[in-house]
């Protein structure tokens, strides 16, 4: 595959230097988009890289050889170029124009051949211009014409394709049409593509690799999710903006903020809820029709059954209290009503059950953790009967149930695994499928298939094969006993107005949930590292927190997250601030890394969760190098490499 690299490249016209000492490598087989403000040198860079402009310093190297040291025609067999304003000769037909792309493959003696015919046919097929083949160019629309030009560049059959502003003068539909053609080409033929584009949002959507250029220098480059930030937009385009996930593509979407026409202080959540509930107050969920259809006006719930005292209640009676009154943690019987594979790494299971009427902390779940009981081989016996909403429990067991459970034969008791509540919808919520409350849990699938069997952690395997109708036991807060200060919620920003949220894929559900609650005045960064680009999900926040998804690809786990956090939280200037002391070491192989804080009165708060080794590194950086007050940070190891968690 062709590899094009600029090495300390300097470019300019006459005496003015436009690009100075720039080094750039176009990732082979990927789509690179070059963005920047007008006059930043992006087109000049493309001209330099495509041999149109002789460098005043440095070199452009194609597959190890300087492009200016090779015959133009040889280069043109490997490197195709579509300039900004090519000229269509009068009266030329589409097919003829596309055929001109074969020029580099023809010699003094080698004339038009069937190979050329084939290449032209392929190029026209790839761009959907076959039907136009005999039409004169002048009769075509702008989008069609641009597709024909791309077809010409394709007929050149090069491994590399450079396009300079291929969407200028096109309306939106045609812009997408053109970029889709290029994306298809990249996918099907593995062509390495570099495009100069002025539309940042389209660039972010279609790029594998985004290069932001400022004053002839690379300001940032990498995956769009990592490059497109409010800071970057501000620095490169000189414009304040909000960056939100593109609801269509999941890529970053830049919303420019001008001086006028900015909506202030609107509570989107509330409005949305009101609109959805169809009632102006919108605070009380309406009584679900299915439940209300019973004999009384009151929906059937656990209380009825409890007072009814049926056979489920342990016979001993004396010394036992209703779990509902006694236990902060209840065991809920849940049934899966939906299981959807969101992306290669995520599967969302939506649970429901009448028990959920007792679930919650009275407030938003934030990063509320629950435990799921993944059934083992045994089964049959309900080890959590006493913890069920209708259960009765001995005082000793209110705190001792876990110890008791550990006594049971592991093969029989199953596995306890910790997950976050991605969202909790009380009964009557318009998004619910049935009459009861519902919970979404997003499972990371770290499974592989061996001999036709799924192999992986038990929770992961369970989730991978979960189907509607499956039941499971969940341990979670009892709404009767737990308030918003429930210990299973760790996100406690206190009075901080600037926050940092960082985590890997297991923390993504918690972070997305937290983001939804943040008020408009809050600023800061959220970094979420996920395995692949496809795992990027839509996240919503009213706050000014900029959300960046970091698709890991082939990078080591945590590396991108680490870099992102380091760039967001700078090390104070030497001497200005006393950096913190080395935090005491935590051997993540032995203990769980769990150091939480909150409710402070500092302006900055950080919440970090994910693989313990990664979080440990971040902890060292933030506490020791950046000198962050530990009362302002929560570090949570959500899982450990090579270890099972409970």
């Amino acid at each position: 595959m062709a590899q094009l690299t600029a090495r300390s490249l300097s470019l300019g016209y006459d005496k003015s230097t436009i690009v100075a000492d720039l080094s750039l490598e176009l990732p082979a087989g990927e789509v690179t988009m070059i963005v920047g403000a007008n006059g930043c040198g992006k087109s000049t860079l493309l001209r330099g890289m495509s041999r149109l402009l002789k460098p005043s310093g440095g070199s452009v190297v194609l597959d190890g050889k300087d492009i200016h040291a090779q015959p133009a025609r040889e280069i043109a067999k490997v490197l195709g170029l579509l300039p900004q304003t090519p000229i269509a000769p009068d009266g030329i037909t589409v097919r003829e124009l596309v055929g001109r792309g074969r020029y580099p493959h023809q010699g003094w003696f080698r004339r038009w051949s069937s190979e050329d015919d084939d290449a032209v046919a392929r190029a026209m097929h790839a761009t959907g211009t076959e039907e136009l083949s005999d039409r004169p160019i002048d009769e075509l629309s702008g989008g069609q014409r641009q597709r024909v030009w791309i077809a010409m560049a394709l007929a050149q059959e090069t491994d590399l394709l450079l396009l300079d502003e291929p969407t200028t003068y096109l309306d939106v539909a045609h812009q997408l049409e053109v970029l889709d053609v290029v994306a298809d080409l990249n996918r099907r033929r593995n062509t390495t593509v570099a495009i100069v584009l002025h539309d940042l949002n389209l660039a972010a959507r279609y790029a594998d690799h985004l290069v932001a250029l400022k004053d002839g220098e690379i300001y940032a480059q990498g995956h769009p999710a990592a490059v497109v930030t409010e800071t970057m937009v501000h620095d490169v385009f000189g414009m304040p903006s909000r960056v939100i996930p593109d609801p269509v593509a999941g890529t970053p979407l830049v919303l420019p903020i001008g001086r006028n026409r900015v909506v202030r202080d609107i509570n989107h959540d509330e409005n949305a809820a009101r609109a959805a509930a169809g009632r102006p107050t919108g605070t009380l969920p309406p009584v679900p029709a299915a439940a209300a259809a019973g004999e009384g006006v009151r929906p059937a719930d656990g209380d009825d059954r409890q007072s009814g005292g049926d056979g489920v209640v342990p016979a001993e009676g004396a010394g036992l209290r209703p779990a509902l009154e006694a236990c902060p943690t209840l065991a809920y019987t849940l049934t899966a009503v939906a299981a959807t594979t969101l992306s290669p790494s995520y599967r969302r299971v939506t649970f429901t059950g009448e028990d959920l009427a007792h679930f919650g902390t009275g407030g938003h779940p934030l990063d509320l953790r629950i435990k799921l009981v993944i059934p083992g081989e045994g089964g049959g016996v309900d080890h959590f009967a006493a913890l069920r909403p209708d259960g009765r429990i001995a005082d000793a067991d209110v705190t001792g149930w876990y110890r008791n459970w550990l006594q049971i034969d592991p093969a029989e008791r199953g596995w306890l695994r910790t997950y976050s509540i991605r969202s909790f919808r009380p009964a009557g919520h318009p998004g619910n499928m049935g009459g009861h409350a519902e919970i979404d849990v997003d499972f990371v699938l770290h499974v592989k298939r061996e001999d036709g069997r799924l192999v992986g952690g038990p929770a992961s395997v369970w989730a991978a094969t979960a189907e509607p109708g499956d039941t499971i036991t969940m341990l979670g807060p009892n709404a009767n006993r737990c308030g918003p200060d429930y210990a299973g919620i760790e996100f406690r920003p206190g009075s901080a107005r600037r926050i940092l949220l960082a985590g890997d894929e297991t923390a993504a559900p918690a972070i997305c949930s937290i983001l939804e609650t943040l008020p408009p005045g809050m600023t800061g960064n959220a970094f979420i590292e996920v395995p692949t680009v496809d795992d990027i999900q839509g996240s919503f926040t009213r706050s000014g927190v900029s959300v960046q998804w970091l698709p890991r690809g082939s990078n080591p786990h945590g590396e991108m997250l680490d870099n992102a956090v380091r760039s967001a939280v700078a090390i104070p200037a030497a001497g200005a601030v006393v950096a913190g002391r080395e935090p005491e070491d935590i051997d993540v192989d032995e203990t769980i890394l769990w150091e939480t804080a909150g409710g402070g009165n500092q302006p900055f708060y950080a919440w970090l969760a994910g693989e313990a080794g990664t979080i440990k590194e971040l902890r060292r950086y933030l506490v020791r190098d950046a000198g962050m007050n530990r009362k302002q940070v929560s570090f949570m190891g959500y899982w450990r490499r090579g270890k099972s968690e409970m």
Partner: protein
Amino acid sequence: MLKRADTAPATAPADANASREAALSASIGADSSAARGTGRRVRRVGAVLAGAVVVLFIARVVLGSPVVYLDQLAQILAGETVPGLSFIVLEHRLPAASVGAMAGAALGLSGTVFQTLLRNPLASPDVIGVGYGAATAAVTGMLAFGLAGPLLSAVAFAGGLVVALFVYFMADSGKHTGGRFILIGIGVAAMLQAVLNYLLTRTDVRAAGDALHWLVGSLSSSTWERAGTILLSLVVLVPLTALAVSKLKILELGDDAASGLGLDVRRTRAALVVLGVALSACTIAVTGPIAFVAFLAGPLARLLAGRTNFACSAFVGAALVLAADFAGANLFGDISLPAGVITGALGAPFLLWLLVRSNKQGMGG
């Protein structure tokens, strides 16, 4: 193939398939015939134009006073001597017609090369002064140094090239081929015409009479020797032009696109300028500047064929010169007008029209 032929009549679905295939191939047929449509038109127009050149050539040889009948012409060509006619046909009309056809073709090619290269129909060598550059150099060479034959052609070529390069660099290395370029060219042409006038008034009357055709090109002084000079030049230049046209087709797409396709834009452009000048100069050294043939041939051929085509331009150029010479010799009674006067009279209105139109389009740069 065989299999399908066997089963097709047997089963209904196969029938449906066959008919769909037939429809498909019919539509493909329609497609490619449409594709051939434009090519066919060019070829048809080319054939008609070639025919017109032949007819005009014969007409130029046989018509006039005295009229040569075709059987007499056949006799003459067979080598028999027809008294009173042989000399006129062999030493006068035939070489004149040959020079006219070749000169016209060369001018047509030269003009179309320039017009396409500079993307401006006004940018033909006669309008921008290249023709007068060649003529001035030729007249100087002839009057001052007594040059003739191929050497004269070479001097004409040098003169044309100097003017071409001068105009080219005055207009910012050819970056601007709009109004500015044309105006510089027209200025240079006017200046050179004055120089030519001056040179001719300074020489003795007999030589000046002979040299009159340098001001308005004509075929009157055509000889076999001069025809040979043009033929020699064309034998070299036409194949080169054919090669260059394939590159010009790429250059037409714009400098950047052409570079992207691996064309050395600067060298190609320089080569095309030299070629265009050479095509003009080789004829001008013989006939003088036959006004506006180079300028008219390309656009007229385009009008007829629907697109730029170099062969058609060459035929139109040849036809124009032959027709103009024929008209000048035969349509004005006793007076015989040089071909250049006729083409000038035809070309001037067209030039004005183009100038007015380009001004409206604001080609001021």
